[in-house]
């Protein structure tokens, strides 16, 4: 958050409509994303009640657990759900790209596409994570055997939830978070957590303004919550009697039909909202670095898919080295993601200008042919003076790059009120005269920033067998135990 975002919120509040926080789309939107709207039973950690799932607006499948406390019915649900999700994963791969061989001559490939899962909110992500945790250790034989698809689903859901933590990944996204990345509303972040209210501000229904649409969305009877928690009055007045009737009927189809009907009524409005939101996102031009990030997602997907057969289910807890490496990767990804968005989008860059880490303005003076002849060989070091009204908070000597063309690099030589003198150091070709068009001309509008993609390199971590004693020494190789498989799910 910053004054810039807050200002957008104020304007949204006054104008009664959401204001843009981005001028391009910063996430990938698949051609056919798998939209999931899950519901769970109140009071339980991850007892699924229902899910509405499908990869097209007019192709929704409704799965319901008519008695969520019944273990057999739950695993029946998990098996059906698994088939839908796994089928989507297998059909979302696209072609195979051959890549240049790796350092040690390994064959490398990348799938042409990857599956994208979209849920309404962060709670939906948490639910998939727990559902993954509760199914990935299941045994497919023995006294509590489950359908073979169930543990496979569990491992994939765990993997998706893990990728969700990776900044910039678009494999699993929570719709409210994606929308909030692109729009500011005139309500608080708490209220933005309600998908219907958030969309009400961004794209109010005919005849309503943002506040009116959001107010309507807060009535759980008119606008059912987007899950995974259900509304308590729905539970008490509709769901509980319907489940009780189902129990007493001994699984009668009328009772089940009525239950499904009631639950469908809770899910369908959110389903519509999800696809409307997908449409809104598609209408935004894609940010320049989005395909690159999606390529990383495809790499991750390719790797997991390729090694799925030989790997164990993910351990309950990461061993220390893996945990440290993961944290380091997440931090690096966060830095790169933040920088990439700023380079892609002047409105995001404006945040850095406000914070003094970037400055923009008009070139007032330029010496494009200036040479530095102090060394053995002369070097091309053009000077560039940029007039700016921005509150620059960079020191002399700081390396900066051009926001529109990051390859053009320079060093701050002098800071004066209203202007910055730069010495350009790279990105102008190899000759002693700059490539035509590479050095901005007087009168041109430019923006320079100290941000850079990948500002800190990959750290070295010990191999697992060298885990330091401070971290418990080398961990035992994780092998799932019978206990994992037999864990109760009651």
């Amino acid at each position, binding site marked *: 958050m910053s004054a810039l975002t807050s200002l957008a919120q104020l304007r949204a509040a006054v104008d009664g409509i959401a204001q843009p926080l981005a001028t391009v789309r910063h996430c990938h939107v698949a051609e056919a994303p798998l939209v999931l709207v899950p519901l769970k039973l109140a009071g339980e950690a991850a007892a699924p009640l229902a899910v509405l799932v499908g990869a097209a607006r007019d192709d929704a499948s409704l799965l319901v657990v008519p008695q969520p406390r019944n273990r057999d019915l739950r695993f029946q649900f998990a098996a059906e759900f698994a088939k839908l999700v796994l089928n989507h994963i297998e059909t979302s791969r696209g072609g195979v790209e051959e890549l240049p061989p790796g350092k040690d001559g390994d064959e490398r490939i990348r799938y042409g596409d990857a599956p994208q899962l979209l849920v309404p909110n962060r709670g939906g992500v948490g639910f998939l994570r727990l559902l993954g945790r509760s199914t990935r250790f299941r045994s497919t034989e023995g006294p509590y055997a489950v359908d073979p698809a169930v543990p496979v689903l569990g491992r994939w859901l765990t993997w998706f939830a893990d990728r969700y933590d990776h900044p910039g990944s678009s494999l699993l996204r929570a719709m409210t978070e994606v929308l909030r990345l692109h729009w500011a509303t005139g309500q608080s972040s708490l209220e933005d957590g309600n998908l219907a209210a958030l969309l009400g501000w961004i794209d109010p229904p005919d005849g309503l303004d943002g506040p009116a649409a959001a107010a309507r969305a807060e009535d759980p009877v008119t606008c059912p919550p987007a899950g995974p928690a259900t509304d308590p009055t729905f539970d008490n*007045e509709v769901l509980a009697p319907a489940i009780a009737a189902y129990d007493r009927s001994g699984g009668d189809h009328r009772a089940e039909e009525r239950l499904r009907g*009631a639950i469908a009524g809770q899910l369908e409005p959110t389903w519509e909202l999800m696809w409307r939101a997908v449409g809104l996102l598609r209408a935004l031009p894609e940010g320049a670095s989005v395909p690159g990030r999606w390529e990383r997602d495809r790499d991750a997907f390719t790797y997991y898919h390729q090694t799925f057969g030989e790997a164990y289910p993910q351990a309950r807890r990461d061993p220390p080295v893996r945990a440290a490496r993961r944290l380091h990767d997440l931090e690096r990804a966060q830095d790169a993601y933040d920088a990439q968005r700023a380079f892609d989008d002047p409105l995001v860059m404006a945040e850095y200008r406000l914070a003094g880490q970037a400055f923009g303005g008009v070139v007032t003076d330029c010496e494009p042919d200036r040479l530095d002849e102090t060394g053995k060989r002369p070097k091309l070091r053009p000077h560039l003076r940029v007039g700016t009204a921005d509150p620059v908070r960079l020191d002399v000597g700081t390396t900066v790059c051009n926001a529109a063309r990051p390859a053009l690099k320079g060093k701050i030589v002098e800071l004066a009120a209203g202007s910055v003198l730069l010495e350009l150091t790279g990105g102008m070709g190899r000759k002693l005269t700059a490539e035509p068009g590479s050095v901005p001309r007087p009168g041109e509008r430019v923006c320079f920033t100290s941000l850079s993609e990948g500002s800190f390199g990959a750290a070295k971590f010990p191999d697992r067998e060298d885990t330091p004693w401070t971290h418990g020494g080398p961990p035992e190789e994780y092998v799932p135990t019978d206990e994992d498989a037999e864990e109760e799910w009651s």
Partner: protein
Amino acid sequence: MPRSPGLPTPDALEARIAELRAAVRRAAAAGDRRSARDLRADLRLAERQWDDAVLGAEDGTGEPVRDDDDDDGERDEGGDRPQPARDEAPGRERGARAGTKAGRGLLPVREQVHQALTLLGAPAAPKLVGSVYAAFFPGEIAASRLTSLRRDEERSFRTAPYARPYYLCAALTADLLAPARGLLTVSTWPLERRIVGPLSPRTDFLTAAVRLAEHAGRAAPTPDVQRLLWRFASNIPGAVTGTVGTVEPADLAAAARAELDVHREPDRRGRASAAGRARARLDDAERLFGSRLRALNTSTRRRATTGETDR
């Protein structure tokens, strides 16, 4: 069933159901219990009409749907919050057995309880009584019948004392000789066994473990018996000797006896002295069903602020 001319169409019914659901939820959310109750009744009616109109009436399914009304009635009396269902949702076993009505009706419920308590040999909560009966005897005890059992027994005793060979009665708390919450005993037991002090819940648990293990040891334990014994064994030190979920009855009995040795004597002393007081102070009915401090009831209605006086 041919639709009579006055019946609304399915579409109209669906609209009405949606409308009523919304109205019920709004009434419940606003705390308006009276309208919520009326609306609920209308809603159930509309749902039944929809069932009949759309899905067609089927044999044997009319009765269960009707039960809804009972639930609603209970909830209304319960205050602002919805009352939780009194029983757990049917588990696998219970669901599977629900239909076997024949097994249930063999004995009157008081005899079923008597059998289970006799096997347990110690005061027990209705839930444990139910699981013991289900594990060791044919059929199961209808949980709903247990709630009124103690009251019925007391009424019967007060009307015609000692007319029956035994009564199912309360356990008495050692300090005030009042009925202990949620524990059943048999009138023919010695008073010392029917009185519970602070150590008694544990000694009774261990006593029951010994007795059930010995009883189970006489034949190959069924899965139900195994499950019941596991509940004991997993909470007694040294009682689990095999793999998780399985119990060797002899080991369970030995482990329970070992811990019992620690508590038995202090527990016995407390119970015996309380039993002495009970014999001296209580009449026959009180000795069976406990004495209550009825006179003090009035003070419960006073509000928080008045409590300052007893500081």
